[in-house]
């Protein structure tokens, strides 16, 4: 399997956030403005004064902030290559430069344009970037290594033992009569477990993820026969998209366990993957068996995948489930990222 470069915003606690992520950007904007609010409060003597002060500060802050965000967005790939310390310094330099660059125009925006005003703005810029760096550092630490790494590993190694033992039993049934098929099945099984046990921190391609699902389904087909019918609808070209590893496989496994196994009559699992502009849409559905759905296992897998989507894409990814017309449906929407 090919390994892709990590685009996780928190591979290590000492890493700059991903400045192209909507969640990161909105946090930057909100926090900087909150700080401006505090400044306004500190500088106004009475409450009536406060609104005016805030408007004044915000008027000066917003253009600078916008410029900073745009520069960081554009320079994100460059920044990602720097060491954490140099990265922090670079971001600070960007903030200071942007503040200084706007200074000549501040007169028109309500400032009086003397050197004390400039010093105040620069202090504000340093304070704001320092505070944001500190916030993202803490946030990364809260999400990261010990806790989330452990959780990721645990989550990913979560193929059901039920599946392993049933598959081994099915393979054993072939050994005497159809050794060739037994061989192929064991190869699939080995490949599947190699993926499950791999270090799955980095994003993988959708093509690889689909291949793993097919190997898994081959094995299930072996024991379920015609009871299992899978319809794939994968838009050509999307196989180069980057997704968290083991994103689809646990969902397909759940679909078999909760949708196919409890039924006496054959059932269909449908997987649709398509690109809509800069979004990747994955949809999976299976027959719904009321008394068998929403068990612990299913909920665990779903919250696991939600958590990993959040780790990789923050607020830009979503996972939703619903029951429509006797079918259980899962929809995932996430940013479309191509192999660089």
């Amino acid at each position: 399997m090919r390994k892709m470069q990590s685009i996780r915003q928190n591979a290590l606690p000492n890493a700059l956030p991903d400045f192209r992520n909507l969640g990161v950007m909105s946090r930057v904007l909100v926090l900087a403005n909150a700080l401006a609010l505090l400044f306004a409060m500190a500088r106004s003597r009475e409450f009536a004064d406060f609104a005016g002060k805030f408007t004044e500060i915000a008027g000066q802050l917003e253009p600078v902030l916008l410029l900073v965000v745009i520069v960081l967005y554009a320079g994100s790939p460059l920044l990602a290559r720097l060491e954490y310390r140099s990265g922090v310094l670079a971001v600070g330099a960007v903030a200071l430069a942007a503040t200084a660059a706007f200074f000549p125009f501040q007169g028109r925006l309500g400032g009086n344009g003397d050197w004390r005003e400039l010093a105040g703005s620069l202090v504000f810029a340093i304070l704001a970037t320092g505070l944001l760096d500190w916030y993202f550092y803490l946030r990364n630490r809260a999400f990261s290594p010990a806790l989330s790494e452990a959780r990721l590993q645990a989550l990913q190694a979560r193929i059901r033992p039920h599946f392993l033992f049933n598959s081994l039993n099915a393979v054993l049934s072939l050994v005497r009569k159809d050794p060739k098929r037994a061989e192929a099945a064991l190869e699939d099984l080995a490949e599947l477990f190699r993926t499950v046990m791999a270090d799955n921190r980095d994003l993988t391609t959708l093509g690889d993820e689909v291949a793993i699902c097919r190997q898994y389904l081959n094995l299930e087909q072996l024991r379920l026969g015609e009871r299992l019918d899978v319809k794939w609808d994968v838009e050509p070209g999307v196989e180069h998209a980057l997704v968290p590893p083991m994103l689809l496989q646990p969902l397909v496994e759940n679909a078999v366990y909760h949708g196919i196994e409890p039924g006496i009559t054959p059932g269909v699992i449908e997987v649709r993957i398509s690109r809509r502009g800069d979004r990747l849409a994955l949809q999976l559905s299976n027959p719904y068996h009321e008394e068998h759905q929403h068990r612990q296992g299913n909920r665990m897998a779903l919250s696991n995948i939600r958590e990993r989507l959040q780790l990789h894409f923050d607020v830009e990814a979503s996972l939703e489930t619903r029951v429509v017309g006797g079918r259980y449906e899962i929809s995932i929407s996430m940013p479309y990222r191509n192999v660089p």
Partner: protein
Amino acid sequence: MSTLRVVIVDDELPARNRLRELLEDCREEVPHLVAGEAANGVEGLQVAASAQADVVFVDIHMPEMSGIEFARHLQVLERPPAVIFVTAHDQYAVRAFEVNAVDYLTKPVRSARLLAALKKAATGARLARGVLESIDPAPRRHFSIAERGRVTLVPVAEVIYLRAELKYVTLHTRARDHLVEEPLSQIEHEFGGVFVRIHRNCLAARRLIRGFERSAETEGEAGWSVVLEGSDERLPVSRRQWAQVKALVS
């Protein structure tokens, strides 16, 4: 040793094939023949009954009817076969089997374990009464009635009411009535969510209660009767149960 008649019940064809292969390997040590196979519990009951099975291998994890419920229904047969459970991975069930000395095999099945279980079954060891209920207290989906050497299954959802009459309990559905050999109190205990006690001798399906009618005087005073969907019978509600039953219709 007479030839054991074996039946295999598993929803997965490869699993049945594998078990047949392994059985063949120990045919010399324990003479037996595979008298039938089934892919689910409902079929399995008919196969086991008509094949006059001595031993049944049954997978626990099957669609529609679990292996445990299947084994419970088998017990209504006049001469219930020995049951050997097979499971891929079910820690809970395995622990319960160990505690209750119930025979089981884990998948992939090993021939040594299979042989031991087969030998034990050949000695005539059978399931003790009440063991399965204690292993899996989840309510069954069917009632089972032995009729002329066959097992008739009545889905619990089709039962309108059950009434104790002398020695038996009569189970009433739209289609017909059946006699079951289970005490009413046990049925009430198992299916508390489905049936409500309306009288000392009667349980009614909760979701079929449509209303109440004033009934003629019994034992000196007038009472209420339950109107049930799907039945013309008006079932008297005892004074003790009245408050509880009335609360179900609002």
